[in-house]
């Protein structure tokens, strides 16, 4: 399966027209100028398959599932198949020694050129011993693989931000890729799991322009993470009208009203679900009637309850009773002091001046 990508695609029955359409869509999704679609098509078609090494750490394989099974067969899936995936524990046939050999061969042959994809967080607790592959810790493997990588893609929220393993109390001391690797370009593609087209978008951009796409302050491609779910949500008009579903099966829910009150984290979540949707554009969480969990944001697991509205605080009156008692005590104490002062003033026949009234 060597040779340019277009040959392989043709063999799979993908015509020129379909391929151009796909590239144009991809370019417009990434808010690139129309000419970029053409450039992308040229570059992608001619591209030799880039060597990709995929390292899984503390993860659940959900990111891989998202990429490979989302809605196959699609061009996305095929392009993903077409990259030279030299190491991926879940997908590769090799195991044990063979797998390790493949990894090291790929790293050596393509040193400085391969794309490193990481999914899962990296545990630092007890010297990284919580997660080891072939007897070596994740942090050790990451540092070695990162040294020869052209760029690193942190796939999924765990690799990008620590994700669920980092949730309080973070027993394994999990951290994100960007906490360990500082000297390589990193793209975070958060999501639990991330959207497949974001992955191919980043790959296509890399192959076409030889650089990574524009990133935001959390190293996410702005083309996909530039706006919040809430900004692009088709239920947004109901929010603006103040029409909210109160429970998951009331009339408002049936009419498709806003899920804000049911805990939707759309207003603070940057992702492209509302526009790209899932399963080949079939639907997405909010469309299926459930609020956004905020899975593409750092520490979404600890950001309040999934079913608590964003405007609702955790437990604000926890201190209320104690504060009222303390306030009453302070008030009584101060008023006794005031009365004492008044009595003393009366006894000594103190006069009131204008300055006193100014106090």
């Amino acid at each position, binding site marked *: 399966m060597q040779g340019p990508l277009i040959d392989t695609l043709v063999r799979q029955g993908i015509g020129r027209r379909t391929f151009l359409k796909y590239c144009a869509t991809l370019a417009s999704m990434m808010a690139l100028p129309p000419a970029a679609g053409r450039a992308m098509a040229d570059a992608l078609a001619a591209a030799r398959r880039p060597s990709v090494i995929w390292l899984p750490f503390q993860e659940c394989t959900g990111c891989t599932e998202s990429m490979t099974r989302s809605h196959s067969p699609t061009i996305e899936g095929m392009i993903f198949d077409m990259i030279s995936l030299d190491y991926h524990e879940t997908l590769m046939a090799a195991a044990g020694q063979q797998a390790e050999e493949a990894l090291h061969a790929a790293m050596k042959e393509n040193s400085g050129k391969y794309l490193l994809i990481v999914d899962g967080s990296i545990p630092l607790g007890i010297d990284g011993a919580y997660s080891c592959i072939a007897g070596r810790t994740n942090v050790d493997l990451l540092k070695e693989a990162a040294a020869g990588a052209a760029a690193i893609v942190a796939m999924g929220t765990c690799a990008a931000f620590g994700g669920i393993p980092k949730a309080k109390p973070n027993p394994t001391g999990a951290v994100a890729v960007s906490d360990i690797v500082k000297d390589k370009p990193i793209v975070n593609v958060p999501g639990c799991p991330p959207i497949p087209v974001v992955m191919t978008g980043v790959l296509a951009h890399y192959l076409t322009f030889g650089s990574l796409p524009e990133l935001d302050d*959390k190293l996410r491609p702005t083309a996909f993470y530039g706006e*919040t779910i*809430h*900004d692009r949500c088709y239920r947004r008009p109901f*929010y*603006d*009208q*103040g029409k*909210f579903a109160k429970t998951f099966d009331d009339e408002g829910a049936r009419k498709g009203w806003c899920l*804000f*009150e049911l805990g939707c984290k759309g*207003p*603070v979540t940057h992702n492209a679900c509302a526009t790209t949707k899932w399963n080949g554009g079939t639907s997405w969480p909010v469309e299926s009637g459930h609020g956004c969990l*905020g899975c593409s*944001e*750092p*520490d*979404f697991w*600890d*950001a*309040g309850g999934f079913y608590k*509205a*964003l*405007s*609702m*605080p*955790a*437990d*604000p*009156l*926890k*201190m*209320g009773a*104690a*504060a*009222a008692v*303390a*306030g*009453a005590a*302070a*008030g*009584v104490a*101060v*008023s006794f002091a*005031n*009365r004492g002062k008044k009595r003393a003033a009366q006894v000594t026949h103190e006069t009131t001046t204008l300055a006193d009234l100014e106090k």
Partner: protein
Amino acid sequence: MDALELLTWARGPGLNIALGIFVLGVVWRLIEIYSLGRRTDLAPARQHAGASGLHTVLRRSVPPPGMLRSSPVSYIGGFVFHIGLALIVFLFAPHILLIRDLTGLSWPALPSQFIDMVTVVTLVAMVVVLVDRINKPAKRFLSTFGDWFTWAVTFLPVLTGWMAVQHLLLPYTLMLALHILSVELLLVVLPFTKLIHAFTLFGSRWYAGRINAHKGVPV
């Protein structure tokens, strides 16, 4: 600490602390003020139509004759921003949700677009009142640090809230966090500044009206 962490803190521990200080401060100040007391007036009470605590509470809610013309900005601006604040705080859907979560009480909200308009009007009125305070020599002379400070802590929550809803300047998450933090600042300073008038306003009017009614003077 990123924006979502800041927001989580502001909604969680931050709000706990702010509400705690607020409740503590309000209870303290009210007990302190009302326990000051007043010497009993031993003179026989006089009667005069319109002289009572309740009369004064109501009468002082409208401008005295002639005052509206001589100081229109204070009265109109004052009315506009006070009513605006009340509408925004109590009739904006997310605020009602917060109150429902705290107390279990809820009521219908006004449309968000309407609240948006009210917010702009309130902001403008507050700026006009501030400019008037700066421009009028008498007002400026009477103003202390407390006046400028309380204006700022009242203005900030309205401004940040409006900017959060309108997605201006900063990302929504950060703006919402700043909005909640500014409200927390307001809650913390309210009991210990002139803003305590939110609680003492009617009490002090009643007090003044009651004392003068005893003397037969409608104030």
